[in-house]
């Protein structure tokens, strides 16, 4: 479980070019979007792309993404559930 945490946070940082942020800087229960990391709708789409490339999860509806990307924890659970 811990390893997915580190791995996934590392992938988020890489996919979104967040080079000033460490995995520890992404808090499990804080919202990913809006304040906090300062992510926007294009970042959400780049996360969608990362999930497809690295975990084989295909998202075609932004509503699914919106729910999955609420916090880091919801994203991790989403990956656990859907990865292939």
């Amino acid at each position, binding site marked *: 479980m811990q390893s997915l945490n580190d791995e996934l946070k590392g992938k988020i940082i890489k996919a979104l*070019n967040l*080079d000033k942020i460490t995995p520890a800087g992404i808090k499990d229960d804080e919202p990913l979007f809006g304040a906090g990391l300062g992510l926007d*709708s*294009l970042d959400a*789409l*780049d996360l969608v*792309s990362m999930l*497809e*490339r690295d975990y084989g999860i295909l998202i075609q509806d932004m509503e699914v993404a919106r729910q999955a990307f609420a916090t880091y924890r919801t994203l991790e659970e989403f990956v656990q559930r859907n990865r292939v």
Partner: protein
Amino acid sequence: MSSRRPVVTGLGILTAAGCGVSAMWDALRAGRSGLGPLTLFASPRYGRHQVGQVREDVDQLAGDVRGSRSDKLAWIAAREAIQQSGLAMPLNGHGADRAGVLLGSTVAGMLGTEEVVGRMLRENPQSAIRNPQLFGTEEVPGDLLRRQPRRFTPLRYHECASATDLCARQLGARGPTATFSTACSAGALAIATAAGLIEDDELDVALAGGADSLSRLTLNGFGALLLLDPDGCRPFDAARAGISLGEGAAMLVIEAEETARARGARILARLTGWGASCDASHPTAPDPQGGGATAAMQQALERGGLSPSDIGFVLAHGTGTPDNDVMEARALRRVFDGAVPPFASVKRFFGHTLAASGAIQAVAAVQALREQAAPANLGFENSDPEIGLRPAREFQSRPLQQVLSNSFGFGGNNVALVFGREDPLPASAACGVPGRSQEVPLHGSDGIYRTYRTYRTYGTYGAAAARRRSPGIPLAVIGAGLVSAGGHTMAGVRSALAAGGVAPSWLESAAPFPLGRLRGYSCGDFGADEAIPAARRRRLGRLQQMALVAAKRSLPQGLPAALSPERVCAAIGTGLGCLGETAAFVENMLMNGERAPLAGRFANSVHNACASQLAIEFNLRGLNSTSTHREISFEAALWHCAGELRQGRADLALAGAADELSPYMQAAGERWGWWDGNAPAIRPFGRELTGRRRPLPGEGAAVFALARGDQASAPLARLQSVHFGRFAARPGGQPEAQQEAAWLRESLERDGVPLASVDLLLAGASGWPPWDDAYREVASALSVLRSEEVRLGAYKQVCGEHYSASAFGFFVALGLVGGQIEPALCLAGIPSPAAGARSPRTVLLYTLSPGGSHALCCVCA
């Protein structure tokens, strides 16, 4: 009454709904969608999507012209429009100098480029992904592409300007000719620009429109943004789920009314008004409140002297994305104060044809006025409460006097056009003889036109036109920012010039390119880390960062707070756009078989990504233009800004240009034998390049802040004149020197600059002998014209050869007239008897493009 009012005299169109105006109109009348399966190329991910693909054999229709699919689409539409207008083709005599081509393009030759890149990647799949070292050794240079250079041919037609130059060559046009690339509003912007050039008395007749083919890049890009509706778009419908991508071209012949009447042309409609604005909010999504869209529509109405109730029908942008349609409905309600006229989106007929869509709608608008009927909004079934408006359900006859057409692009680049009805003329006047004057009644006999409300608009229009370009108001350059291989400050540029130029550097290369063989004039680290906060920088491509850093340097104190954002415009030239981001997207797409497309890269890949980032950074809501016309991209951008300032629509303008080096560009140049590891540094007039060799490529960005001369204190310099167009080429492609000299003199004198006052001709010479000679011959011809030697200077020894180099030259010109750069430094190595120390007060920046264009800017102390 102004006789410079733009009128439409020819239409041409090619879309998924058929070839020709009548085929298009038949489809609209019958409610027949042109959407269908994608067969142009294989797409693993989106191959089952409905697209608006042109079904005709484009190669066959285009005849013997060479070019990309986009080029051919443009030419087929242009040919129809020219034929209808009755213009002679090719034009001859004085008419050619007063004719121009203005084209919107965004995909351009990408379809062919993808094939070349795909081959490069496929032929070296292992090495391309996992083993770049394979390419690092000298054993690999003779790779497949070198042995088969013809396979690189599509790259020759990669650029946006390719279609424009093709049409201009065929028409024989020699007036102002440029290409604009503001994504989905580019075609409409080209039409608006043509109208501006006509009103400004730069042109009598323009071929204007847009063209774009389908491509994997755009299909995957919109897919990455989750903006594609697989089953076909449903604009304004409650269940709408995105766009359908399409392709096509539409062209209009637009003329000054006086010249159209003088040659007895049949006037199909008037271009009554046009407006352009910027959202300054997001790279791809529209401003939800529709502020920019509202402003563009209001400007178009105002410019035409119209009130909202004059509009009988609106051709909406209506892409079918959830956001656009809500935003547009909101903007329509604001403009029309609740009384929104009947409206329809025609996107389900043709698909979203990107740069062509504004021009396609323009053709539909003119045809609607002529037929007194308007199309239905195909794809609409159920109302969306969030939209709260119902588009037209049926094709039906409507009494139409004015039709509004909207185009909104990525980067919040909005353009609105209004076309007005022209009275049907008597049959005897309907077929004019080109070149022969004919008596044509100014008004028809049915009386409707005269009693119609727009009659009063003539007065307003005339007043607006009376404000047109007056040489009495020079513009002031009040700020200058630079990113270049020769430094980023005036002092840096001065020492680089003093050193005789900059040594080209070895560039980092990545698979699939050979390591250590690419050399060019790179900007290296240009200070983006300090200038742009990390949170913002992470989303920007390199070229965007270059442009943004240059812009910030041009406005060290930021924008004056008192300025209204609506009255600040920006125009950025870029010959090739954001190559790095485009390449990253395309490479990922091809390597991964269209899996996991990169949305952010696609958003950054559009040519207008730089100008729209400037708008977001500084909150610039006026005209936001991106010109993409090879070496004269900067001058076309500068012209746009100058026009907005002179006509009182802007108080401040940011004009500039930016281009970046790309390994792909270098690889292509290598295969053609232009560059190699031993290529010499650039020495203008040095005669070191022989055979096929070309000057080494460079990159850079420069942005200038401009204001009206009467509103600026202590400017860096005055901008007295800016013009661009096409030259008369002799065999070999270079211009005829005497004609060039005459063009330069005439252009300067129109702006009140006597040729005798020019102290230095700053040329775009780059050590490429045929073009160096052309510059020198023009300088000699100018010397003869004014009976005094013209001093010749050059600057590309510092910035390298690239499409935005003339913006660097403009920076040097500012240093020359400002006394920071001694003229002798630009003359280094140039044998010139008059190379004295006299500090120049007037510098003429003169640029030639091998594509057949020329441009001048005149900068004075």
